[in-house]
């Protein structure tokens, strides 16, 4: 049985092939050899046989260097798919008008024989969450208070991805300032889940997840304060990585909760996410909390992984967090996770249950700390400062009325609620009972993770207790929406890296709804997570995480 799991798929070969029109859940029966003999298609669609995703980034680079496709052609194909799907999805708040220009520049470079000097992200279409600043595009944070605001600088992560050849396609939708788990909290639009247009993509990086899932871009930047990259990755069936706190500079990320915020990556394969992370990581002198830890070369890591080995993860200790499979977790999710555990065991992992006693304390502690910090971070949106030129400023005779009017009309209800909660928690007389206790809980959580990771290489859990909600389902029930963050917030409190990889489906929609498996590692051990995630993803049978919207789209899969 194991031999069938490890069909000869080597990343170094990356056959460019046309995906079949089969429905995503059904694995393609076509053999690798027959398809790889096909002439190069107009689009380098990265999808290896059997449904395991290949790296789009590496495929694009090979195609560009071989001359089989130009960056402009690539850009046009992504843009046309974007235009086709965007009316249904609303992933983007703003789409760049200089994509083709950037692509042309790359083609010019190749034409001049500068192909060798191409950056690792050359020609790669990148979606950027709209709370990450871009100098040439509006950056609103999903808030009306920053409508039309154009920052005078690029965020460090954006600057780095551009330097490496990445092309920013546009700014993706989010819950206002990252506060929400459905992207319904955006001040501008509601984004749909490509797997079921009646469902939410998760949040707050819902636009980034939906755009990657629908192949509107190759990879995207998200931000993760309490699970905002991982939960939408799970809901949309894509790979999401929340790096260690400090791994990626926060400079240019509109602060929600500064001690928890991390810029993360979303992609359709673990390899893409790893290569993308490598491009944006590293110390930044503009962020005092960014780490000086060395950034490993994740790309060479993937090349070195031998997918033919029978038990590639032999002896790896995996701790399944007991508290994450308690009541309140959908049975479909549970069974998908159980299947994933079996799969990991087949790969050679030793899976044991571990208990994190402080796990359930994470949610209240998170909401106190995040709200407290947000009440402070959002003070700058006062209707008086420069941002007011673009966003909301009410006309008033009196200063306090100006503040109140601008903030009342500029912020949405979720943001107002969190500012109120945070202001309350920090107020004299309540600080010790709330903020200080939450910090103590944070220390406990950090210690319990450390203990668990001393005896285990990684910890695993579902990425969310359920699959994607129906639109409006949680809108009037904030507590139940907050409860959906139970799987992810603890990781932010501990500052650890976590990778979400799609692992299965639950019945729902036209073709099932994806479930994500969360893998948590020790601080700055992204490399280990990526290696395990890559092996898991490449060997997973019977699942293909291309949403029906795209699987039916002729520009993506031609027959």
């Amino acid at each position, binding site marked *: 049985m194991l031999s069938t799991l490890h069909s000869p798929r080597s990343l170094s070969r990356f056959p460019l092939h046309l995906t079949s029109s089969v429905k995503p859940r059904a694995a393609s029966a076509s053999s690798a050899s027959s398809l790889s003999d096909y002439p190069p298609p107009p689009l380098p669609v990265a999808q290896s046989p059997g449904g395991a995703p290949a790296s789009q980034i590496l495929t694009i680079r090979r195609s560009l260097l071989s001359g089989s496709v130009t960056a402009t052609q690539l850009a046009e194909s992504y843009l046309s798919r974007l235009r086709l799907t965007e009316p249904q999805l609303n992933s983007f708040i703003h789409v760049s008008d200089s994509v083709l220009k950037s692509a042309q520049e790359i083609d010019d470079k190749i034409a001049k024989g500068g192909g060798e000097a191409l950056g690792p992200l050359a020609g790669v279409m990148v979606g950027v969450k709209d709370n990450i600043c871009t100098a040439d595009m509006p950056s609103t944070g999903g808030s009306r208070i920053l409508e039309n605001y154009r920052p*005078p600088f690029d965020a460090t992560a954006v600057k780095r991805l551009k330097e490496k050849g990445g092309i920013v396609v546009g700014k993706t939708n989010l819950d206002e300032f990252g506060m929400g788990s459905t992207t319904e909290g955006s001040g501008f639009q509601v984004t749909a889940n490509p797997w079921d247009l009646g469902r939410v993509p998760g949040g707050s990086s819902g636009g980034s997840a939906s755009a990657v899932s629908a192949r509107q871009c190759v990879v995207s930047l998200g931000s993760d304060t309490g699970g905002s990259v991982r939960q939408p990755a799970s809901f949309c069936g894509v790979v999401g990585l929340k790096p260690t706190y400090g791994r990626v500079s926060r*400079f240019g990320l509109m602060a929600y909760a500064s001690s928890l915020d991390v810029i993360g990556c979303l992609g359709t394969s673990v390899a893409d996410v790893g290569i993308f992370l490598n491009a944006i990581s590293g110390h930044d002198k503009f962020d*005092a909390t960014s780490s000086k830890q060395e950034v490993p070369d994740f790309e060479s890591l993937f090349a070195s992984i031998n997918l033919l080995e029978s038990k590639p993860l032999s002896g790896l200790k995996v701790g399944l967090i007991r508290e994450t499979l308690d009541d309140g977790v959908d049975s479909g999710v549970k069974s998908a996770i159980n299947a994933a555990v079996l799969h990991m065991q087949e790969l050679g992992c030793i899976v044991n249950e571990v208990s994190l006693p402080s796990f359930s304390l994470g949610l209240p502690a998170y909401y106190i700390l995040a709200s407290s910090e947000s009440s*402070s971070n959002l003070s*700058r949106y*006062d209707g008086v*400062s420069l941002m007011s030129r673009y966003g909301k400023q009410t006309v008033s005779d009196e200063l306090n009325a100006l503040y109140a009017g601008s903030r009342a009309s500029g912020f949405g209800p979720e943001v107002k609620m969190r500012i109120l909660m945070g202001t309350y928690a920090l107020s*004299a007389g309540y600080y010790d009972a709330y903020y200080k206790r939450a910090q103590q809980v944070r220390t406990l959580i950090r210690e319990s993770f450390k203990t668990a990771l001393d005896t285990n290489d990684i910890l695993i859990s579902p990425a969310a207790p359920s699959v994607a909600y129906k639109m409006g389902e949680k809108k009037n029930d904030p507590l139940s929406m907050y409860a959906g963050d139970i799987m992810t917030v603890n990781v932010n409190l501990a500052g650890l890296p976590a990778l979400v990889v799609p692992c299965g489906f639950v019945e729902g929609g036209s073709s099932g709804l994806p479930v994500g498996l969360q893998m948590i590692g020790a601080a700055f051990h992204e490399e280990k997570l990526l290696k395990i995630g890559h092996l898991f993803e490449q060997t997973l049978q019977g699942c293909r995480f291309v949403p029906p919207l795209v699987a039916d789209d002729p520009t993506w899969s031609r027959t």
Partner: protein
Amino acid sequence: MRRTVTAVVPALLGYFILSGLNCCRHLCLVPIASLKLFNSATGVWWRVIDFVNMASTLFRNVIQAQPLFLNSSALLRRKNGVLYCTMKSTSHSHTQTATEEKQQQKSPQKIKVPPQKQMKEVSKIGADYEAVIGIETHVQLSTLTKAFCSCPYSYGAQPNTCICPVCMGLPGALPVLNSKVIECAVKLALALNCRLSFSSKFDRKQYFYPDLPKGYQISQFDIPIATGGSIDLDLPLEFGGGHRRFGITRIHMEEDAGKLMHSGNGSYSQVDLNRAGVPLLEIVSEPDMRTGIEASEYAAELQRVVRYLGVSNGNMQEGSLRCDVNVSVRPIGQAEFGTKVEIKNLNSFSAINRAIDFEISRQVNLHSQGQQDSIVQETRLWEEEGKWMVFFENTTATDPIPFLVQKTVTMRKKEGLADYRYFPEPDLPEVVLTKAYMDSVGKSLPELPEAKRRRYEEMGLSMQDVLFLANDIAVADFFDATIQKGADVKLAANWIMGDIAAYLKNEKLSIIDIKLVPHELAELIASIKSGTISGKIGKEILFELLAKGGTVKGLIEEKDLVQASYCFSRSFLHRITDLGDIEKMVDKVIAENPKQLEQYRSGKTKLQGYFAGQVMKASKGKANPGILNKVLVEKLNAKV
């Protein structure tokens, strides 16, 4: 230090300029006056706010307070000793800055106060009540760049030209601590004998105000960088002198806010963010001071210390050194403090002194009338400009006596209710200091004012001289360099405090601006002492050196040459010290005055002066008087 901090962020500024923001251009091109209320086209960087109502809230109490003093009841109250009138302008110490002295000169001498009233007031305070004074001082650090970004700051720059996304609080911008701020804090902490925290942190102090772009100030709350120090000072002699030591509660680092500029008619305000993010050290004193003069001398000593250390220019007019004073009064013998009142807007040392004394009088008066409950915890503003008032002494008096009424007025009440919702700043790591770092900074400290004063005192200088010389580090350095070259201590002090100080004052120069170097002053003093030149000629040379520079030797020779070309013969400047020359002259004079010689020898010895005068005349004033007299007495008394 564990943490690394950067001070230079040039790329950021580059972005900013190169990005060619329209608003950025507005900054430079749009004159202030053309900006109108809610002009959304230009009012972005210049935030435009209507302040009409706000101003009236802010200053309502001011407006209400004034009539009180203008009507007759105010006069009555004045007679009870409430009204405080300044007369202390003559009593400023020479520790004050030149600019301040100027300001005081502006206050006309019209200020008069019936002296007996003052006496009564003072004695009342002394006998029954005691004032307790504590001071919070903000010192603006003269680092090249701001506390958390790479913007340079220069006082008086065009509005909003020293700004970047970080100090403007743009979304996504993050603070990065300038390591020089820590160095300055450690220097001052060591100079004020404080305990340094090996690990301290930054906190956010939150409040809404248009000059605070982030909506919070980065400050230090419960763990400041330094605690528990002291400062030593000597009170000026005109205030009775004496040495004082006042406690320092804490020193912490924080950032400054921007500045609001209110339009002439009060219909709108503009924000200049140049000052936003400039590093400050806040120094909180123990409530150890008891009088206005002690408080103002505390502030003056703090100014000296920061100037000696080079961490700040300490200039009060520019706001580089700002003092907020807390004053309370309690009956003598009472252990607990009275209700404290904070006074702001103190722009000079004399304002500190006068405002406190006014406030003490006000509070003592309320106490003595049994109205101590009407002293509430509040912030009061010192009205430096004051108001000229005329009143008639007694009802029968005919001479109007003009008064400058300077007073404190309520700015805002209910101080205790402000909730700044401090919490640890998550964007900045802890500030960790190592013993080695503290030691290395400690070793780099210069000699501080207190040590300098004690050393000068030991040299035998009078306290007046000591205070003058140690007041300004540039003067002290000049003095030290002069005596280093072997100059007589007292003479060097006299020259510096006398002619040089007068020259500096007339020319409005600082001692570092003059061409005279300490070495030449030492040379000059030595030349006079040795008798090479006279004191009178020394003075001439001094002024030459002050204005044009050069050397004492060179000037003497130069003058010699000049004289020679006119008079052919004798040196003008050189004292004739050659014994033979003087003997010849004495012989000649004696020979020419046989009559006087006879009288002298017959007992009229007073005639020695006549002979000396004649010799001096013959030498054109250049004979060394010591040698001359010696030779003269010898010759006159010679037995023939």
